[in-house]
């Protein structure tokens, strides 16, 4: 018996030695700091992701990056005005910054610049002999500025495949922005497959959350998180916006139809053949609408409350067809205006619709209005046509200064400098209005990634920061698409198991709805394998 244990012990010992040896062999070997004469390259090093010239949150995870310069040794010194510098040495050019030191450095240097001094060891430029001398080269410092203002601590987003019509594997995830921890809010494995999409928060908090789900097995519904309790509403909310009071949520009902392009860069396209706005009253569980936002001759969508709760902003386009089954020939002429309607919460009374910005004026279709929590900035997308900016490479972010508009009576819009030649969309503000998170396809045209940009007091947007990952080369081969990034101050507290149980459960609050639905009712999908409606990023 004892002999057997000795064998077992020896086996475990060997295993440990093996692991240790592998760690030593494969791990980043300790590199000495640059010594001897250092050659100044006279330009900045190529790094990927390009973390340079940005304003970064003081509470962001380390900006791990790869140095794309040939070399056999790499040394990066990260420093600012206060505190000890961080030194990273490696042989591969993969710069992984220690989280705790990074956090301390940023915290101690709010408002200051942070420098990355990059040194690369390479063979002497004159290889006269095979054993040429190695020399350290120093590149110009990469400089970023640390903002004074924090970004909200968590980001909630959808992680899905680039195509998502069969809902094999999708979910809503949350990421702690201080580090790299990602956790599932809810994925479709918890309700037997299906779509889990639009997630909406009230005032950048997670005590009131709405999550839409479409399940061939359990029907279409919306999960409502209220405090630490969750329940299911027997209606599918598409684009949703919480009233700042948390007492109601406005949402759109969209009859979506998908079609394809035979030769464009983006294959997919969608058109809303019909849509309207409605609102859900949390206390009574009622769904209501008002004729002004549910006109038969117009397509209303993308509701967004102003932070004071007095106005509901939304997009609206004329509906020039009667057939709700065929893609209209004029699909590429559909352009949405930006409108708003006043609302009085106490009396539940709606005012008149007023146009904020017309498509006729801009020549573009206006989508996805979002207003900063301080009420000053109205951020939206504009693209060449249609209702779905993430499918349009022409989609860019634009902004209106609402305070200036109030004074001048004119809504002046401007295109932000952070746009690319690919689609920008799905933007959200941080609770202090200083940060925006948005989706962009700028690096590939296919895979949507999350970017964060600083917004100064005058509405100037700074070079966006690709959401950092622990592995600097993560995005190089990442086949996921990240969309609908929503900044929140705290994590979603209701656990995925509970949300899943509620999604699967039979209990759901039914809502009476006074007008014809634009979308099919839950559970009416004729084909359980695939939804009739296309999924949208």
């Amino acid at each position, binding site marked *: 018996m004892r002999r*057997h244990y000795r064998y077992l012990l020896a086996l475990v010992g060997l295993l440990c030695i093996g692991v240790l040896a592998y760690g030593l062999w494969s791990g980043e070997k300790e590199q000495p700091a640059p010594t001897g004469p250092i050659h100044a390259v006279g330009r900045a090093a190529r790094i990927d992701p390009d973390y340079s010239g940005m304003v970064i949150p003081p509470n962001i995870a380390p900006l791990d990056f790869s140095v794309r310069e040939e070399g056999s040794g790499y040394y990066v010194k990260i420093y600012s005005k206060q505190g000890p510098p961080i030194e990273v040495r490696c042989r591969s050019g993969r710069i992984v910054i220690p989280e705790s030191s990074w956090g301390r450095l940023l915290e101690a240097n709010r408002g200051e610049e942070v420098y990355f001094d990059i040194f690369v060891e390479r063979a002497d430029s004159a290889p006269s002999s095979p054993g040429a001398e190695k020399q350290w080269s120093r590149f110009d410092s990469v400089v970023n500025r640390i903002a004074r203002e924090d970004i909200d601590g968590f980001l909630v987003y959808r992680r899905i495949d680039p195509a998502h019509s069969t809902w094999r594997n999708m979910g809503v995830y949350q990421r702690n922005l201080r580090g790299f921890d990602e956790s599932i809010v809810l994925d479709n494995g918890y309700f037997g497959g299906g779509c889990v999409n639009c997630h909406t928060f009230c005032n950048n908090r997670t005590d009131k959350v709405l999550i839409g789900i479409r399940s061939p097995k359990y029907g279409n519904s919306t999960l409502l998180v209220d405090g630490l309790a969750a329940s299911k509403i027997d209606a599918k909310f598409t684009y949703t916006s919480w009233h700042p009071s948390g007492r109601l949520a406005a949402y759109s009902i969209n009859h979506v139809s998908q079609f394809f392009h*035979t*030769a464009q860069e983006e294959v997919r396209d969608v058109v809303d053949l019909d849509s309207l706005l409605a609102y859900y009253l949390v206390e009574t569980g009622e769904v209501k609408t008002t004729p002004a936002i549910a006109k038969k001759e117009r397509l209303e969508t993308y509701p967004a409350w102003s932070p004071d709760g007095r106005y509901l902003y939304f997009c609206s386009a004329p509906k020039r067809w009667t057939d709700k089954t065929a*893609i209209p020939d004029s699909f590429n002429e559909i352009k949405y205006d930006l409108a708003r309607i006043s609302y009085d919460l106490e009396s539940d009374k709606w005012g008149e619709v007023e146009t904020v910005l017309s498509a006729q004026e801009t020549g573009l279709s206006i989508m996805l209005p979002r207003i900063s929590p301080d009420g000053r900035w109205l951020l939206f997308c504009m693209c060449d046509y249609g209702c779905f900016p993430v499918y349009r490479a022409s989609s860019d972010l634009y902004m209106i200064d609402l305070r200036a508009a109030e004074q001048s009576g004119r809504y002046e819009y401007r295109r932000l400098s952070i746009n690319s030649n690919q689609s920008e969309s799905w933007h959200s503000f941080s609770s202090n209005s200083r940060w925006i998170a948005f989706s962009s396809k700028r690096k590939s045209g*296919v895979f949507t990634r999350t970017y964060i940009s600083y917004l100064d007091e005058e509405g100037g947007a700074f070079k966006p920061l690709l959401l950092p990952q622990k592995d600097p080369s993560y995005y190089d081969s990442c086949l996921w698409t990240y969309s609908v990034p929503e900044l929140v101050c705290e994590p979603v507290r209701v656990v995925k198991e509970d949300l899943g149980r509620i999604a699967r459960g039979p209990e759901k609050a039914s809502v009476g709805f006074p007008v014809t639905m634009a979308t099919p009712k839950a559970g009416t999908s004729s084909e359980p394998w695939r939804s009739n409606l296309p999924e949208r990023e």
Partner: protein
Amino acid sequence: MAGSHGKSSKGGAVAQETAGANLNRDRGAAIGTSIFFLAFYLCTWLYLDLQVIYYSAGMLTRFPVFFRGWPFFREFTSYPGGLGGYVAAFLAQLFHYSWLAAGVVTAQALLLCLCTGYFLKTLGLRRLYFLRFAGAIVLLVFCSQYMYHFAMTTTVCIALVFLCLYLKLTASSDEQVSGPARRRAEVRAGALFLVLSVILYYVAGGAFLLFAALCAVRAARRRRWGMATLCVLGGALIPYVEGVLIFGVCPEKAFTESLPGSCKMDFGVHRGAGVIGGCVVLFIVAAGLGLYRLKLAGGKAARGKKTARRKQSKSHGGAVELRWIVDSAMLFAVVGMVALLSYNGPRGRLLKIHCYACRRMWPEVLKAAGHDSSGYFAINAVNQALYHTGRLGDEMFAYPQHPDALLLSGQDQVLLHWHKFDTQLDLGLVNMAQKNFTECMEVYGEHPLILKRLALINMVKRNIGAAKIYLRALSKTLFEADWARYYLVALDTDPELSTDRRIGQLRSVALKKDHSTIFVPAELAYLTLLEENSKNRMAFEYLMTLYMLGKQVDKVTGSFKRISEFGDKEFPRHYQEAICIYAYSTGKPVYLEGRTLDPRVRKEIEEFSGIFNSFGKNKQAAVGPLAREFGGTYFFYHLFGFSGVEK
């Protein structure tokens, strides 16, 4: 004393003889086992050709992906059963080569056999020793059915290895029959069980339950009831504590991860499989019992002749030899029957067609399909193979045809057999292929073959950023990495890939003018492709094929003038036949673009008409004789609406 000495020496001789017999038996069993697994290997390699599983194109769901590197590995470390899944995913990639696939499956079967044998031996159930082959036979059934349950069988193997380890380490505790020594031994065994359980559950997930159950069986057989209770309780509690409380897995998953019934396993791939599997298991049991009875009978007979055999050791050796031969023959008969009964020929054939089509091995596609594969996918692949071998216009009616199978667009939302979307890519319907392959990736995972196609499509479309992402992902796979690295380097040196012939060819045929539609009707697609590039030969041939399949001979004749674009003097036989039908039925002259009608075709139509008229134009009566003579012609298809009737 002398007597006792004489007795003991007699007893020693008997023991020696028994040991010798055991040794002979063990040697015989080893030889039998070796022959069995050699046959198993050859069968799975040469007969079943398991590489088709790698190319299964959605016919086998949940075929795992595998990427090299820590990030991919780390994903598997976050839940119980993940490591087992990782090992299975790695081994599954070896199905890329038939000989390797057979090797992996045989090794797994051997492991199952050895572990089961050891378990039976420690339980003292030598008479049930033949059951050690049960696992291998079940594996053979899976292979013959072309089903994929590798993740499950891998974790079961791991569980059995742990079981053997446990049995080995606690073997001495069984010798303690009573007293504190026995208690100590039991405590040690219990502690060992718990330690191994915790490790095993993390490594193999739900397969741990098998380990716990078999440990409980063993303890019960030894009447160690405390130990048996511990095993049962451990089986119930460890998945809950470790899986649910520590790893945060939902309870359903905690007990079923990597087992049938878990959400990751799909046993509904082939409906008949369960029934056949059940029959096979029954058959194994029946055959086993037969063997057992035979052994008993043999044993009785042997006992009756005990004295005689002792005296005649040669004849004893002969009996052992005979029994060994009978046992082996029975075993091979059982296995042969199992392999035959469970073999799913049609499925294997479809998988082979897909495998060869994926690898653009066109003659092999035609060989695998034969002249009687009438499924849409098979027809689609056959037409593709005929086109690429330059025989579409000459031989297509020698194979079954259907107008709807020519271009499978994905409009029916069936993504199975995703190789069919290669036809779209080859034609120039690049966006449609992209849409379908992207959806395939969503449904079937990041299979290297899908990644490869998406990388290619994005390179054709000059989406360099996206192409590089697909290529970098592909470069982490085991067998497509070289291709990916080649293109990554090529893109760095020339982002346009201007010297790449395949890319250049695909770009030359790719649709350039955008049409917005839900799905493009096939005819419009071909016409648009030809409008943009009149030298798109595949679009031309598919258009002509479409017209022929739709019996639109006027359109065949009308479109024939496009043939002059290709600068050769080819005049495919079926086009001649269609033009003949048009000319004969309308009496109108047809301009043949400088080509001449083959006199044999003219003669054939006259003979065809003659036979048909001789039956008073009765189709039913004429079908037999016409099929015999003209089964592979367009005349036959045009009249009867089906083809693939060989001459």
